[in-house]
């Protein structure tokens, strides 16, 4: 947006002089990554603390879902497709990447529609797409399924692990006194609309700002939050209106909810949250890979001493973990927060001070 960053910082420092300690949680992995990349914490007054929340889709995918992905990718008849950052998430000693190294047919896609192209190219194989992410990516999977249904493609299915963000924020922050304000995810808001975050001031009693992802956009949103705190005003300010409308992308949401419906879902670190996941409506259930391949739910345990679950709840920071930067690095991650570039551990590791 090309704000004058110096002026914004002066405004933040001036307002911070008039408040006590302030903890602002960001719930978007891309915000976490940008905040570390631009060194934003080092620009802020010492009484403003930025806390990472459960905003990385890779990090919050449960180990049971990772186990299901590994089981599916191990089948001879399956071509398994996913985004690149799912490849290295470990489940015990196995990851999708280790299966790929053993010769399994696992392919990276940059659009869910790539899975449809592969399915049409290999009619003798079964193509599985690993659908993860929040409202920013779930409509894409809905389009994939509708297009596959229209084209009568029978050899495509989805390991559906999509989730919705407002329920996680509510579960995390209701009855939570250590967080003073929320930095809301700009691209989720581009889909669900600014009005969808009204629950933050209304139900959670926290001021909030919807933010873009450049340094000046994040700082402008922090300024807006400090302004709300200073005025003791409960509101959610849309500081990304160039792409976030009040109602969001209604046609995308209509399409999403034509194909999927809310369901309970298990989040890594947060457990089972009611109505926080998305499952296919009955007319589309044939596309669910778990059913098609009869994948049983497995109980899995988190890596020993790994703090990812506490980090996702904003209760710990990556350097608190005994594994961090010792035996847990982006090349050899122990826990999921080190895997994706949007995970808090990976962001801390990449932009750490030597």
């Amino acid at each position: 947006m090309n704000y004058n960053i110096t002026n914004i910082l002066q405004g933040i420092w001036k307002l911070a002089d008039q408040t006590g300690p302030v903890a602002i949680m960001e719930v978007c992995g891309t915000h976490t990554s940008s905040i570390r990349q631009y060194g934003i914490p080092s620009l802020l007054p010492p009484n403003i603390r930025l806390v990472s929340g459960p905003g990385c889709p890779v990090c919050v995918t449960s180990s049971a879902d990772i186990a299901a992905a590994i089981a599916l990718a191990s089948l001879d008849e399956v071509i398994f497709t996913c985004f690149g950052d799912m490849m290295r998430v470990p489940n015990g000693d196995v990851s999708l990447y280790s299966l790929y190294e053993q010769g399994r047919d696992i392919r990276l896609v940059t659009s869910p529609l790539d899975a449809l192209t592969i399915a049409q190219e290999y009619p003798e194989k079964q193509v599985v797409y690993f659908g993860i992410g929040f409202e920013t990516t779930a409509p894409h999977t809905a389009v994939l399924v509708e297009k596959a249904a229209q084209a009568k493609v029978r050899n495509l299915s989805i390991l559906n692990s999509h989730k919705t963000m407002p329920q996680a924020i509510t579960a995390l922050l209701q009855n939570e006194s250590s967080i003073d304000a929320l930095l809301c995810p700009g691209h989720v808001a581009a889909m669900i609309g600014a009005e969808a975050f009204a629950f933050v001031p209304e139900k959670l009693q926290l001021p909030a700002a919807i933010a873009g992802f450049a340094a000046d956009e994040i700082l402008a949103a922090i300024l807006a939050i400090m302004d709300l705190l200073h005025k003791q005003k409960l509101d959610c300010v849309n500081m990304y209106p160039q792409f976030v409308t009040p109602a969001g992308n209604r046609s995308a949401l209509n399409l999403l909810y034509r194909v999927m419906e809310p369901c309970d879902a298990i989040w890594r670190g947060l457990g089972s949250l009611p109505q926080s996941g998305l499952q296919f409506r009955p007319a589309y259930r044939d596309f669910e890979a778990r059913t098609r391949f009869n994948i049983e739910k497995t109980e899995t345990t988190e890596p020993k001493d790994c703090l990812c679950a506490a980090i996702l709840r904003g209760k710990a920071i990556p350097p608190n973990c005994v594994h961090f930067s010792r035996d847990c690095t982006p090349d050899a991650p122990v826990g999921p927060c080190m895997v994706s570039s949007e995970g808090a551990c990976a962001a801390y590791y990449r932009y750490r001070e030597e």
Partner: protein
Amino acid sequence: MCLAIPGLITKIQDGEATVDYGGVSKHADLSLMEKAALGDIVLVHAGFVIQILDKKAGEELQKLVKATLDVL
């Protein structure tokens, strides 16, 4: 994963836009934003156009930031 990139629509054909990201062109599906038109700056995520830039809203935001700073 949730990072969307803004780009300029330079061509539309068969429900697909060609989007220019400052010299690099890629295709993006228009199923989620059918009203996007030639010349729009759009937000593209994982191969799909998900929003159109509202230039006027950006100017209003600049004014909002300025107004906040002016009263400090």
